[in-house]
């Protein structure tokens, strides 16, 4: 089992004929992902990675019902592509591009809420249910990271996800689903919104969140724990604990203003809510062992 996608999810790829689109679509299919069609305006009638290409999402869906859309278009065209899927009724959309304008990010978020849809990204490597399906550009071939198993992972980072997940795997665990919500200031989906899905997933025993300084996503996770919207063990690794205030650390969203958004503040909130917070990547595995072997962690 898994959340969001599995081997039965029917996926439409927007921008399938582009260089990036065709390259990663092939990788997605290599993993068993079910790509039913693609769209690129002006290219209807072509076949790409074995999938039929249409001028538009609407035209593709007329022939091929789909559950999810994978968006491979440059950042300035992402908003339009996401709106196209949303307005055609697609309820799960993954978009990778790094560099989506902030105002576009906000409109995407707002449209996702209005349509009760899940938009993952941008500025992410995507999502994977190892061994079943992948949407994005995740290196499923790195076995010490993307080993199937029973730990759910949510992350704001790319390379750091490989780092932390490798520690989870080396501690003896595997991954049920890994969701990269991305490093943008206004991601399409927020950590806390995914917790109920992991809560319901019988194959997920615990969740790891890979967070960082800035924003309030980790605080919202703490609120969800306090409100018992998630009751399985939760371990967090947060980067930027020693980052100076007021400096934007790489990701556009990774900035502390005032006394909010610090890793210490987030750690306190999470620990008070019963989560375990790792100081170093390796600790994530250790704490997970502790959490899964121990009794009722939130007494």
């Amino acid at each position, binding site marked *: 089992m898994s959340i969001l996608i599995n081997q039965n999810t029917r996926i439409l790829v927007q921008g399938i004929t582009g260089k990036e689109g065709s390259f990663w679509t092939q990788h997605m299919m290599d993993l068993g992902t079910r790509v039913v069609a693609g769209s690129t305006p002006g290219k209807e009638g072509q076949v790409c990675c074995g999938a039929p290409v249409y001028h538009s999402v609407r035209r593709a869906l007329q022939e091929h019902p789909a559950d999810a859309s994978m968006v491979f278009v440059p950042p300035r065209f992402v908003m339009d592509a996401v709106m196209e899927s949303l307005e055609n009724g697609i309820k799960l959309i993954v978009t990778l591009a790094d560099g989506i304008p*902030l105002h576009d990010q906000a409109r995407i978020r707002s449209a996702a809420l209005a349509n009760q849809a899940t938009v993952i990204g941008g500025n992410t490597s995507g999502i994977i249910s190892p061994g079943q399906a992948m949407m994005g550009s995740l290196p499923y071939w790195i076995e010490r990271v993307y080993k199937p198993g029973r730990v759910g992972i949510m992350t704001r980072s790319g390379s750091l996800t*490989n780092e932390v997940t490798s520690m989870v795997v080396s501690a003896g665990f595997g991954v049920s689903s890994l969701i990269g919500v991305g490093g943008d200031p206004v991601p399409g989906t927020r950590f806390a919104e995914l917790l109920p899905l992991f809560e319901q997933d019988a194959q997920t025993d615990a969740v790891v969140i890979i967070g960082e300084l800035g924003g309030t996503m980790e605080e919202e996770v703490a609120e969800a724990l306090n409100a018992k919207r998630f009751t399985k063990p939760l371990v967090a690794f947060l980067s930027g604990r020693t980052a100076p205030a007021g400096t934007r650390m790489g990701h556009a969203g990774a900035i502390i203003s005032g006394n909010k958004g610090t890793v210490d503040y987030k750690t306190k909130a999470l620990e008070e809510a019963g989560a375990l917070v790792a100081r170093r990547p390796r600790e994530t595995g250790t704490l997970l062992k502790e959490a899964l072997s121990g009794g009722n962690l939130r007494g």
Partner: protein
Amino acid sequence: MKLFEYQAKELFKEAGIPIPRSALVKNKQEMAAALDTIGTPCMVKCQVLSGGRGKAGLVKKAASRQEAEALIQGYFDALPMLHAVLVEELVSFSQEVYLSLGMDPVSGKAMLMGSAQGGMDIETLAMEAPEKIIKMQINLDKGLQPFQLSDFAFTLGLTGEAAKSVSAVCRNLYKVFCQRDAELAEINPLFVTDAGTAVAGDGKLNIDDNAMFRQQAYEKDRSYYASDMEYEAAREGIPYIEFGGDISLMCAGAGLANTVYDLVNFEGGSVANYLEFGGPNYMKAGTAMRLCLANHPKVVLIVTFGTIARADVMAQGIVQAIQDLKPTCPIVACLRGTGEEKVDEIFREVGLVRYTDTEEAVRTAVSVAKGGTLA
């Protein structure tokens, strides 16, 4: 990018927001004409991008022409990279209002914030009297609607002419916020005169770097940056932040870079610079290393764990850079991810050892920076 106060105010004025009469002084030679135009008393305001200019003594009132001249000359003498000094008329006011527009990540809506307690630092106000900050969400598709403007102004406690003129400023500030793809548009203080007229006392406008393709380009010269190195890195498109320490970080991936930054500090080391060459920059290992070495670190610590940013490609870049730049300080390199199996062989050419454990690499770098040697 952050705009200087005078640039922000130029855009505010274009959008219909009243600003004080002012003259820009780009060098000492322009001072006399500016003071002729504005007269005294006047405000003398250094155009720097850092906050807290008042506390830092970079914004001052000059009672006389003599005083104004002394201030301006002093600023240019003390700050060789100073962009400009803004000379503004004095505005007499009966009230100071705070106004800002930003984006609310949870709702995906714009957020208009205001307080009748303007002039003070908003973060201080947020801690001390949060109930005095009025917030209003704006649906970007619908825009800032008239009923919202009116509700906002009256809820701020304004009345009559002041309510009307502050509403108009909000409407126009929202126009700037949207048209300019702003991350933040702020006026603090917004002066309200006895007659109820609103005048922007200060102006902040941060334009989203991701939207520069549809925005007016500002030539960003050296004065926009805190240091020569940050200026140079920015021109290369590489995120780079300078600190005072020993260990130059050269990492791919922002989250991983932040983690390494933390680990260096945990281990008692100190960071010379943060440099992130992930994403589209992963083929720029040479440039990245040049930037790191120019900062004269005791050690360069390279950490990567990439997918598209292939380890073998980065390894080749690193080897090439070592051959070209002949660094005198040690290099600790921990490369993982796609293509990692080829790295050992590539490294062999320059005698570099590949680390595979981040914490071990960090401990080694910290030890080397403190005078130890590579294992």
